[in-house]
Protein backbone atom coordinates (compact mmCIF):
# COMPACT_ATOMS: atom_id res chain seq x y z
CA UNK A 1 0.00 0.00 0.00
CA UNK A 2 2.87 2.35 0.83
CA UNK A 3 4.45 1.49 -2.52
CA UNK A 4 1.18 2.10 -4.38
CA UNK A 5 0.58 5.48 -2.70
CA UNK A 6 4.17 6.57 -3.41
CA UNK A 7 3.95 5.50 -7.08
CA UNK A 8 0.66 7.41 -7.49
CA UNK A 9 2.28 10.48 -5.87
CA UNK A 10 5.29 10.10 -8.21
CA UNK A 11 3.10 9.89 -11.32
CA UNK A 12 0.95 12.88 -10.28
CA UNK A 13 3.98 15.05 -9.48
CA UNK A 14 5.63 14.04 -12.78
CA UNK A 15 2.53 15.05 -14.78
CA UNK A 16 2.36 18.38 -12.90
CA UNK A 17 6.10 18.97 -13.49
CA UNK A 18 5.77 18.12 -17.20
CA UNK A 19 2.70 20.24 -17.93
CA UNK A 20 3.26 23.32 -15.80
CA UNK A 21 6.19 25.75 -16.21
CA UNK A 22 5.00 27.43 -13.00
CA UNK A 23 5.38 24.12 -11.13
CA UNK A 24 8.91 23.70 -12.49
CA UNK A 25 9.74 27.20 -11.30
CA UNK A 26 8.37 26.24 -7.87
CA UNK A 27 10.91 23.38 -7.65
CA UNK A 28 8.41 20.51 -7.96
CA UNK A 29 11.34 18.49 -9.34
CA UNK A 30 12.45 17.75 -5.77
CA UNK A 31 9.21 15.79 -5.25
CA UNK A 32 10.02 13.71 -8.34
CA UNK A 33 13.39 12.73 -6.90
CA UNK A 34 11.90 11.75 -3.55
CA UNK A 35 8.86 9.85 -4.84
CA UNK A 36 10.59 8.02 -7.70
CA UNK A 37 13.63 7.17 -5.55
CA UNK A 38 11.43 5.78 -2.74
CA UNK A 39 9.15 3.97 -5.23
CA UNK A 40 12.10 2.12 -6.77
CA UNK A 41 13.45 1.18 -3.35
CA UNK A 42 10.08 -0.03 -2.05
CA UNK A 43 9.60 -1.94 -5.30
CA UNK A 44 12.73 -3.95 -4.43
CA UNK A 45 11.29 -4.54 -0.95
CA UNK A 46 8.03 -5.76 -2.54
CA UNK A 47 9.85 -8.15 -4.89
CA UNK A 48 11.91 -9.59 -2.01
CA UNK A 49 8.74 -10.08 0.08
CA UNK A 50 6.95 -11.68 -2.88
CA UNK A 51 9.85 -14.11 -3.34
CA UNK A 52 9.60 -15.01 0.35
CA UNK A 53 5.83 -15.41 0.78
CA UNK A 54 4.56 -15.89 -2.77
CA UNK A 55 0.95 -15.04 -3.71
CA UNK A 56 0.16 -14.37 -0.05
CA UNK A 57 1.83 -10.99 -0.61
CA UNK A 58 -1.30 -9.85 -2.47
CA UNK A 59 -3.63 -10.81 0.38
CA UNK A 60 -2.58 -8.56 3.26
CA UNK A 61 -4.55 -8.42 6.50
CA UNK A 62 -6.90 -5.44 6.75
CA UNK A 63 -5.02 -4.08 9.78
CA UNK A 64 -1.66 -4.25 7.96
CA UNK A 65 -3.15 -2.59 4.90
CA UNK A 66 -4.58 0.23 6.98
CA UNK A 67 -1.25 0.77 8.74
CA UNK A 68 0.61 0.73 5.39
CA UNK A 69 -1.88 3.23 3.93
CA UNK A 70 -1.42 5.48 6.97
CA UNK A 71 2.36 5.22 6.47
CA UNK A 72 2.00 5.98 2.74
CA UNK A 73 -0.03 9.13 3.38
CA UNK A 74 2.46 10.19 6.08
CA UNK A 75 5.33 9.68 3.64
CA UNK A 76 3.59 11.91 1.07
CA UNK A 77 2.97 14.54 3.77
CA UNK A 78 6.64 14.42 4.84
CA UNK A 79 7.81 14.82 1.23
CA UNK A 80 5.48 17.81 0.77
CA UNK A 81 6.84 19.42 3.95
CA UNK A 82 10.42 18.91 2.69
CA UNK A 83 9.43 20.48 -0.64
CA UNK A 84 7.78 23.54 1.04
CA UNK A 85 10.83 24.11 3.27
CA UNK A 86 13.13 23.82 0.21
CA UNK A 87 10.88 26.23 -1.70
CA UNK A 88 10.95 28.82 1.07
CA UNK A 89 14.74 28.53 1.41
CA UNK A 90 15.39 28.78 -2.35
CA UNK A 91 12.65 31.43 -2.73
CA UNK A 92 12.64 31.35 -6.58
CA UNK A 93 10.16 34.23 -6.90
CA UNK A 94 11.84 36.33 -4.16
CA UNK A 95 8.52 36.44 -2.28
CA UNK A 96 10.06 35.90 1.16
CA UNK A 97 12.84 38.42 0.46
CA UNK A 98 10.32 41.03 -0.73
CA UNK A 99 8.07 40.50 2.30
CA UNK A 100 10.99 40.79 4.70
CA UNK A 101 12.21 43.94 2.94
CA UNK A 102 8.70 45.44 3.20
CA UNK A 103 8.55 44.63 6.93
CA UNK A 104 11.95 46.23 7.43
CA UNK A 105 11.03 49.46 5.64
CA UNK A 106 7.62 49.51 7.39
CA UNK A 107 5.51 49.64 4.21
Amino acid sequence: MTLLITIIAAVISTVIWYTSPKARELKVGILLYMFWGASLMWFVDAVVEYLEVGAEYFEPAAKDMLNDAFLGVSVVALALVVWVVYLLIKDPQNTVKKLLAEKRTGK
Partner: protein
Amino acid sequence: MACFIVPATEAIITTVAQKVIKKKEAKNDSKSGENKLRFSEKLKWLNGMLWGGSGLLAFEHLWHGEITPFFPFLTAANDPADTAEMLHEMATSGSAMAILVTAVWAVVALAADKITTAQKNEKKKAGAEV
Protein backbone atom coordinates in the same frame (compact mmCIF):
# COMPACT_ATOMS: atom_id res chain seq x y z
CA MET B 1 15.91 -3.30 8.97
CA ALA B 2 18.53 -0.95 7.61
CA CYS B 3 18.51 -1.49 3.85
CA PHE B 4 18.32 2.28 3.19
CA ILE B 5 21.90 2.67 4.50
CA VAL B 6 23.33 1.21 1.26
CA PRO B 7 21.69 3.77 -1.12
CA ALA B 8 22.41 6.51 1.47
CA THR B 9 26.10 5.58 1.39
CA GLU B 10 26.04 5.64 -2.41
CA ALA B 11 24.38 9.07 -2.19
CA ILE B 12 27.28 10.40 -0.08
CA ILE B 13 29.81 9.09 -2.63
CA THR B 14 27.94 10.40 -5.68
CA THR B 15 27.39 13.79 -4.04
CA VAL B 16 31.13 14.19 -3.39
CA ALA B 17 31.86 12.95 -6.94
CA GLN B 18 29.36 15.42 -8.39
CA LYS B 19 31.00 18.37 -6.59
CA VAL B 20 34.48 17.35 -7.82
CA ILE B 21 33.29 16.72 -11.41
CA LYS B 22 31.39 20.03 -11.47
CA LYS B 23 34.57 21.91 -10.52
CA LYS B 24 36.56 20.07 -13.22
CA GLU B 25 33.88 20.76 -15.82
CA ALA B 26 33.89 24.45 -14.96
CA LYS B 27 37.66 24.50 -15.58
CA ASN B 28 37.44 22.59 -18.88
CA ASP B 29 34.29 24.36 -20.04
CA SER B 30 35.54 25.08 -23.56
CA LYS B 31 36.84 21.54 -24.12
CA SER B 32 33.69 19.67 -23.00
CA GLY B 33 31.22 18.18 -25.52
CA GLU B 34 28.79 20.88 -26.57
CA ASN B 35 25.92 18.69 -27.69
CA LYS B 36 25.57 16.70 -24.49
CA LEU B 37 24.37 17.52 -21.01
CA ARG B 38 27.11 17.94 -18.43
CA PHE B 39 27.79 14.75 -16.48
CA SER B 40 27.61 16.66 -13.17
CA GLU B 41 24.10 17.80 -14.12
CA LYS B 42 23.04 14.21 -14.76
CA LEU B 43 24.73 13.03 -11.57
CA LYS B 44 22.55 15.53 -9.70
CA TRP B 45 19.48 13.49 -10.74
CA LEU B 46 21.02 10.34 -9.23
CA ASN B 47 21.86 12.22 -6.03
CA GLY B 48 18.29 13.46 -5.80
CA MET B 49 16.77 10.00 -6.19
CA LEU B 50 19.23 8.39 -3.77
CA TRP B 51 18.87 11.07 -1.06
CA GLY B 52 15.12 11.42 -1.51
CA GLY B 53 14.48 7.68 -1.59
CA SER B 54 16.70 6.79 1.35
CA GLY B 55 15.28 9.73 3.33
CA LEU B 56 11.71 8.47 2.93
CA LEU B 57 12.83 4.90 3.66
CA ALA B 58 14.56 6.10 6.83
CA PHE B 59 11.20 7.60 7.87
CA GLU B 60 9.55 4.21 7.25
CA HIS B 61 12.15 2.50 9.44
CA LEU B 62 11.53 5.11 12.15
CA TRP B 63 7.79 4.38 11.80
CA HIS B 64 8.39 0.67 12.36
CA GLY B 65 10.70 1.30 15.34
CA GLU B 66 13.81 0.03 13.55
CA ILE B 67 15.67 3.30 14.10
CA THR B 68 16.08 5.00 17.47
CA PRO B 69 17.28 8.54 18.23
CA PHE B 70 19.93 7.17 20.63
CA PHE B 71 23.05 4.99 20.22
CA PRO B 72 23.40 2.50 18.44
CA PHE B 73 20.51 4.09 16.42
CA LEU B 74 19.51 0.75 14.87
CA THR B 75 17.46 -1.56 17.12
CA ALA B 76 18.87 -4.58 15.26
CA ALA B 77 22.36 -3.64 16.46
CA ASN B 78 21.43 -4.54 20.06
CA ASP B 79 21.30 -8.28 19.37
CA PRO B 80 24.00 -10.26 17.47
CA ALA B 81 21.40 -12.47 15.72
CA ASP B 82 19.43 -9.40 14.58
CA THR B 83 22.68 -7.71 13.50
CA ALA B 84 23.54 -10.66 11.25
CA GLU B 85 20.05 -10.55 9.72
CA MET B 86 20.35 -6.78 9.25
CA LEU B 87 23.71 -7.13 7.48
CA HIS B 88 22.23 -9.84 5.23
CA GLU B 89 19.33 -7.55 4.35
CA MET B 90 21.71 -4.68 3.63
CA ALA B 91 23.76 -6.94 1.34
CA THR B 92 20.70 -8.21 -0.57
CA SER B 93 17.82 -5.68 -0.50
CA GLY B 94 20.02 -2.64 0.11
CA SER B 95 22.40 -3.45 -2.74
CA ALA B 96 19.49 -4.27 -5.06
CA MET B 97 17.90 -0.89 -4.25
CA ALA B 98 21.12 0.99 -5.01
CA ILE B 99 21.64 -0.98 -8.25
CA LEU B 100 18.04 -0.47 -9.46
CA VAL B 101 18.09 3.30 -8.80
CA THR B 102 21.48 3.61 -10.54
CA ALA B 103 20.29 1.51 -13.51
CA VAL B 104 17.12 3.61 -13.94
CA TRP B 105 19.23 6.78 -13.71
CA ALA B 106 21.64 5.42 -16.36
CA VAL B 107 18.74 4.76 -18.75
CA VAL B 108 17.32 8.27 -18.15
CA ALA B 109 20.78 9.86 -18.60
CA LEU B 110 21.34 7.99 -21.90
CA ALA B 111 17.88 8.99 -23.13
CA ALA B 112 18.58 12.63 -22.22
CA ASP B 113 21.85 12.49 -24.19
CA LYS B 114 20.07 11.02 -27.22
CA ILE B 115 17.40 13.73 -27.07
CA THR B 116 19.91 16.60 -26.80
CA THR B 117 22.02 15.14 -29.63
CA ALA B 118 18.94 14.78 -31.84
CA GLN B 119 17.93 18.38 -31.08
CA LYS B 120 21.42 19.59 -32.00
CA ASN B 121 21.35 17.65 -35.29
CA GLU B 122 17.90 19.03 -36.14
CA LYS B 123 19.15 22.58 -35.55
CA LYS B 124 22.20 21.90 -37.76
CA LYS B 125 19.99 20.55 -40.53
CA ALA B 126 17.62 23.51 -40.29
CA GLY B 127 20.64 25.87 -40.41
CA ALA B 128 22.04 24.11 -43.51
CA GLU B 129 18.69 24.29 -45.33
CA VAL B 130 18.37 28.07 -44.74
